[in-house]
């Protein structure tokens, strides 16, 4: 009796959920295992007391009181990538401060997006390691996809991918990185054995190659006439996870 009534109510949809369970409950009570009955009872109780709903709410409450993983970039923190990171390129110097690039144009040839322009010139004043240096060396950063093939192709390890990733700017001028911008500055870092340690995070950020990276470090957003820059503070560093 109850079976018939409830079945007409539920129709063929799964939706009238309490009644659906009830109808299952009343269906053929002959060959019923106790576990089935228990299952159904608990299901009905769950629906009545909104157990799943409360479970969901407690889960979200747990997240609400847990610590957030947000990095407060750029006001307070900033991610400093690992050394293997492929950011803005640098053109390096050797231990004597001479430019390593011999303008062989291998990087330009191998570049998949053809975004490097190299114009060689003769020079015997000792700027470079040989008598050939790059007159123009320009990377179009809009087209570069930071694949690192130029780095692999270079016979003199002149071009290396750095760790600067803050490349956004307000006009297209900064989209083309010229030699001046890419070349490691001559002096701020003491010359060491082999290749000079270049400021891998770009000219003025003051993070040397020896900094291993992979940290969230303190940071400060600075606005001035030159624009916006983010100054990292290496003394406050932590792994972010």
């Amino acid at each position, binding site marked *: 009796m109850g079976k018939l009534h409830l079945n007409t109510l539920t129709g063929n*949809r799964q*939706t*009238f*959920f*309490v009644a659906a369970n009830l109808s299952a409950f009343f269906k053929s009570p002959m060959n019923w295992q106790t576990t089935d009955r228990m299952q159904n009872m608990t299901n009905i109780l769950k629906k009545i007391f*909104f157990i799943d*709903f409360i479970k*969901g*709410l407690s*889960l*979200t*409450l747990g*997240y*609400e*009181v*847990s610590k*957030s*993983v*947000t990095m*407060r970039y750029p*006001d307070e923190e900033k991610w400093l990538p690992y050394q293997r990171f492929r950011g803005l390129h640098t053109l390096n110097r050797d231990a004597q401060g001479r430019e390593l690039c011999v303008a062989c144009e291998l990087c330009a040839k191998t570049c998949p997006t053809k975004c490097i322009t190299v114009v060689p010139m003769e020079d015997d004043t000792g700027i470079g390691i040989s008598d050939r240096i790059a007159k123009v060396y320009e990377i179009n950063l809009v087209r570069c996809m930071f694949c690192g093939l130029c780095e692999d192709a270079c016979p003199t390890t002149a071009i290396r991918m750095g760790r600067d990733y803050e490349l956004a700017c307000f006009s297209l001028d900064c989209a083309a990185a010229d030699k001046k911008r890419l070349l490691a500055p001559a002096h701020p870092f003491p010359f060491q054995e082999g290749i000079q340690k270049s400021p891998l995070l770009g000219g003025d950020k003051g993070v040397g190659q020896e900094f291993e990276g992979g940290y969230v470090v303190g940071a400060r957003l600075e606005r001035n006439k030159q624009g916006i820059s983010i100054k990292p503070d290496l003394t406050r560093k932590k792994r972010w996870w």
Partner: protein
Amino acid sequence: MPDINTLIEVALIIVKVIVVSLILFTLPIPLTWIERKVAGHIQVRLGPFRVGPHGILQPVADMIKLMFKEDIAPDKADKWLFKFAPLFAMVPAFAVYAAIPFGDKITIPIINKEVTLYISDMNVGILYILAVGGISVYGIILGGWASNSKYALLGGIRSSAQMISYEIALTFSCIGVVMTSNSLSLLDIVKLQSGTILGFIPHWNIICQPIGFAIFFIAALAEINRIPFDLPEDEGSLAAGYHVEYSAMKFSFFMLTEYLAMVTASVLTVILFFGGWNAPLFMPEIPIFWFVAKVGFFIYLFMWIRFTLPRYRYDQLMTIGWKILLPLSLLNILLTGLFLL
């Protein structure tokens, strides 16, 4: 010439109206911030953080943005209705508060005058609130229709169907409360909830009307278009539903309405089922404090649910409304009647 006392009464009512509407106008400002913070923290983010300490000035920044944004009306929109729809939505949201009591009486210390903490105690209070609250849907429907856009129209249609379906369940769940307290006046309903049963259970309607409360709460969620029933503005399938074509201040009116509706729903839940301003067990009675605390909890609960549950499908929404809530609410009335007999 009316005597001085009636004049004072009239002045008092005017002051109350102004105070209440000012509070209501400013209330969404902190609420948006709180909602975004709650959203952020539930999703293990921080929420707004850049404008002011902990992003507390974010709503102010938003407000400035909304004020100075260009007010665009679609070319083929019904210009008049498009302009008036936000008002249609907003005015009822405010008008509801004419009948909502925030507390009983307090005595202002210095002038020693008793002031009632409600604008008016209507003897059909709850009916009035449900009726006027129901008018709010016009803003949504007309806004959706007048925009002359498919998404907005769909939002409006959904909204009208949803409102009608859930208003019935909402009203029926209130009838249980009305039956137990034998009055339509919210003041009486709250007064009857003071005291305790058996000395330790608060005599709140939630104890005698648990089914009623569940139905009321679910139906209220649907009435105020909150997740999981926010189909009129379903971002997933309707972009933003009925207000997709609105911008600037008109848009902010819709937002204001939405937040006010949330506050109203919380206030009604507290008044009808959680004893209004009656203090919980063995706590001292402080005039407005408990009321605000309870309402605040429910507002938080609405936000909490929003970031916990997914949205229902449209057919699910309709089946829940007609096949579950409606029969259950009828059953509730029947049970209450039997109990009272």
